[in-house]
């Protein structure tokens, strides 16, 4: 992130963290105190997270006040800024990575066969970041064939090593 944008980022993240700190504190206060069991008041479950919530709130408050001083509240969000942000190649690559990995890790694994899920993920990843149809790639068939081969080898090798060598029940 560019240093000039850091106060804006600090302004937003510190608000999120302050809300989080307060939420942890309130949740901890509401935890049972086991008075009916004559529990020691210092052993109640909410004491440690409550203290941590308060500390997170206080530290985030300092970041928040500092960002106010640096005029971080001037977020400058406009349609153009958002459009430029989404058109940025590195942002698109970041989002594509999170999406394809997220779909594999949270969606495919455990729902379909491990080997098939891994094959589909590796193939999708390779094609997503390597295949450029708009640039008239002269060797699309070779690229696709090599990607399929790598996907088969990765799924087969990783699955077999963990299943038969390390005796892990595959998800």
């Amino acid at each position, binding site marked *: 992130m560019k240093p000039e944008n850091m106060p804006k980022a600090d302004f937003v993240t510190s608000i999120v963290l302050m809300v989080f700190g307060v939420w942890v504190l309130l949740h901890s206060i509401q935890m049972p105190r086991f008075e009916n069991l004559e529990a020691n008041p210092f052993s109640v479950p909410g004491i440690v997270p409550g203290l941590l919530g308060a500390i997170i709130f206080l530290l985030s408050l300092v970041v928040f006040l500092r960002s106010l001083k640096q005029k971080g509240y001037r977020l400058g969000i406009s349609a153009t800024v958002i459009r430029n942000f989404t058109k940025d190649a590195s942002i698109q690559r970041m989002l594509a990575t999170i999406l394809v990995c997220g779909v594999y*890790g949270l969606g495919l694994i455990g729902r379909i066969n491990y080997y098939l899920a891994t094959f589909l993920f590796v193939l999708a990843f*390779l094609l997503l970041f390597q295949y450029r149809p708009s640039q008239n790639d002269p060797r699309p068939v070779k690229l696709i064939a090599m990607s399929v081969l790598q996907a088969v080898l990765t799924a087969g090798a990783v699955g077999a090593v963990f299943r038969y060598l390390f005796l892990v029940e595959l998800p």
Partner: protein
Amino acid sequence: MLEGFTLFAKALWGFMTPWVLFDVLWATQLGIIVGMLPGLTATMGVALMTTLTFHMEPSNAVLILVCMYVGAIYGGSRSAILLNIPGTPANAATAVDGHPLARQGMAGRAIGIATTGSFLGSTIGLIMLAFFTPLIGNFALKFKSFEFFWLAIFGIVICGNLTAPKDPLKGWISGFLGLFVATIGMEPYHAYQRFSFGYMDLTGGIHLIPAMVGAFGFTEIITVMKQTRMEVVKGKIDRIFPRMADIAKYWKGIIRSGLVGTFIGAIPGVGEDIAAWTSYDLAKTASKTPEKFGKGSIEGLLVAETGNNSAVAGAMIPVLSLAIPGSAPAAVLLAAMFIHGVRPGPLIMIEFPSFVYQVVAMVLLATTAMFVLGLSMVRPLVKVLAIPREKLMPVVFVLCVIGSYAIQARMFDIGVMVVFGIIGYFMREMDYPIAPMVLGIILGSILDKNLIRSLIISEGYPLYFVESPISMVIAGVTLITFFSRTQWFRALKSKIGSVIRNPVLRSNKPD
């Protein structure tokens, strides 16, 4: 001392079997490859290797993890020198002088220097490991709940301070978030389920390995894939074997960096990257030719690599003696030791005295293997750096997924890995260091148990927390570290400084 040497000799002799030596060689070589590939860090390598060694004998498994750790921290110097991309964060300082040397056509010489520096750093570190672990372990037997409470807070404060030098506030927030994460799940006193919201998987809490694989592994994958272009290796490799004159000339710097690196490595959660930068800065200050630093200085490269590899052994000192990791890969090593039934901590010199010297022997074997492999297999291994990230990263993510799942066979852990990877990426973007959060997850249970015990013993009376001299010292250092970064403290310090320096002000002092 003699007993320690006997235990060390026995441990070393015990490892002298062809199979064990074979394990040392492949694990160190794999570590070097993991370290040299941008996007694969030492932490991730050790975490993934923990799952692979799950069914092995404890001593063999830990030996392989130590070899992976030592190899990876060294291996990162390759890409730092050849591509100007540190293979692991520990090698960032290596790139400053290593890459200019490569651009001057001295890539082989730079690799030789880095290998020798790493070897010497590791050697100094392992001597310190053998010497200090029993001492600290015996001393830590005096620790009670108050001392452990302060130690946990000290770890977070110092780690936050050093991993976010420009903005320690963010380091501390990251550390306290990690401590909070550790409170999720069933608490130890009343078996109450905190922050689990009736979700069964959360009652067991967030486990370290999937959280770390996500925070270091998946975060790195996103960061590497985000970049629109990557450097490729150019030029040939010249003479690799180092010249003795290059090494002997800087013996003072080597010893200083070895000692400083080990000391910084031993500070909870701080790690090899800070050790390398500190060694580099100190060497630049003490150097007769500081102007050469950053332009291809042999001295700069040598001390950076000595510093980061000595921190590897240094990070193991608190792992063994206090069960508190000195760095992120050491945190995984600690978790692996627990998985294999070894309980590091103050009782280690009573329960497993031979294990401490076994670890020293492991570091020695890994260091020797690293030196031999580092000087002998340079040219073929450089080809590994030519693998495009588009082809490598999906394989790495597949390993992250199966590695997170393998230890407990829980789908939930894959979710933890993905979520921590995304959180880690955004934290990194916002300048919040990840290491304090991971340290917080580890220290969370120590803090939780010992704070409650301390409160019960003291009945909430705060002075009890600083009653013993050890508590007082740890609390004092923690508070000084914390307040030294505040503006009013710096203003007070400069005011005191100006009063001392200015004779007029001094003479005006009231009698």
